[in-house]
């Protein structure tokens, strides 16, 4: 599973980080996009990665298999 951000979509809500802090981290500066802690998602983090992507209000997170 691969994880990426759709350019220009992240609005910094932080719901992904709340759902899956092992995969997503909001930077200290509030004006930056979410940081993806992994982009090649290992199997043990796949459920976290998609749970975080699913709660994004602007569907900014792209998952590909």
């Amino acid at each position, binding site marked *: 599973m691969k994880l990426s951000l759709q350019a220009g979509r992240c609005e*910094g809500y932080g719901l992904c980080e709340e759902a899956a802090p092992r995969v997503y981290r909001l930077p200290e500066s509030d004006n930056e996009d979410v940081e993806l802690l992994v982009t090649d998602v290992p199997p043990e983090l796949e459920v976290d990665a998609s749970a975080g992507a699913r709660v994004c209000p602007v*569907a900014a997170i792209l998952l590909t298999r």
Partner: protein
Amino acid sequence: MSRSHLVVVGASIAGVTAAESARTAGFDGRITLVGAEAHPAYTRPALSKALLRGHQSAETVLLPPIDAEAETRPGVTATALDAERRRVALSDGEWIEYSELVIATGARARTLSDLTGTGARTGEGKERTLRSLDDALELRLALGSAASVLIIGGGFVGTEVASACLEAGLRTEVLTLDSRLVPQLGDDLAELVTRRAIAAGLRLTRVAGPLEVPPGQGDLHVVRSSAGQHEADIVLTAVGDQPNLDWLASATMRRGGGIVVDEHCLAAPHIFAVGDVARLITSRRVAARTPFWNAALDQARAAGEAIARGRAAAPYQSRPYFWTEAFGLAINIAGPIPASGRLETLEGDLAAGSGLFRWSNGHGRTAAAVNHRLPIRKLRALASSLAQPRKG
């Protein structure tokens, strides 16, 4: 039935999250997800915001499909519940048995004829509302060839649509019962949004009493109110939502226009309800429905966990969080609304439309970030101590 079978009725964010959470928490039986729409789950809050304003394709609002091994039944609705025999009837004629049931059937847009005393529409014409992805795509298409729009209702959806319409250069009028847009946000924020809307060219008309809709066929173009006659190329009704409970015959399941659930989102033995249909009962009262994105997520997580772990699961706790985007304002709110009481400016200037603000009142503290990006974690920390984030 030898193996446990979780049946989830409703396949949008609440239903998918309940199924996923049950699986993650250790539920190892079968899962069946029944959903009325042909689309996979999508982000509904984006429909009246980015999707309506932009030229993005429908795919851009779709969410990742369910990961948990599950059978999905798109385009199928539940038509009856037989709680005694633990089974649900489906629109394709089948009865499916469950060991646990999650009701996540959500809500539909309320129409003028749902509102008693506002004048039912007697014609055959379709009343335009905005609730589903298909509604949004149709509305966007229609706006593309229209010059004017009349929106009935000045809540979140009405206000966001009005903003998109003005941005697209349409003559736009909103009819409201209140003197301001989004009154549910509280006086200070409602005033800010309304001021910006008027400056952007919105015609805001306060009406009293019932609206009159002339009988007729085809699309609605004319509405009469206490303020006179209103005409537009497109008329959109945005007067709230109505939970989808019609398929539940039992009165105990639909008390006061919702399904009453406990802190594990349990409504009756083996039956959970989450999202727009659910009303939480506490020792003090039965709360109103909370048809909002985050409430649906939190309830679905609580129900999923309870399906796997029973009473040992973490209970649902209300942690209100809302956002809206209109007239150049992006507003995120943590804590109960309306945000009322004494206004505290933590940063910026509310009249200028940006900064961080907080209100203290009888039911706690509410924080709002206006045109100021702030993750939910930080906004919650600024808000009520009654809404501590749950670990996990």
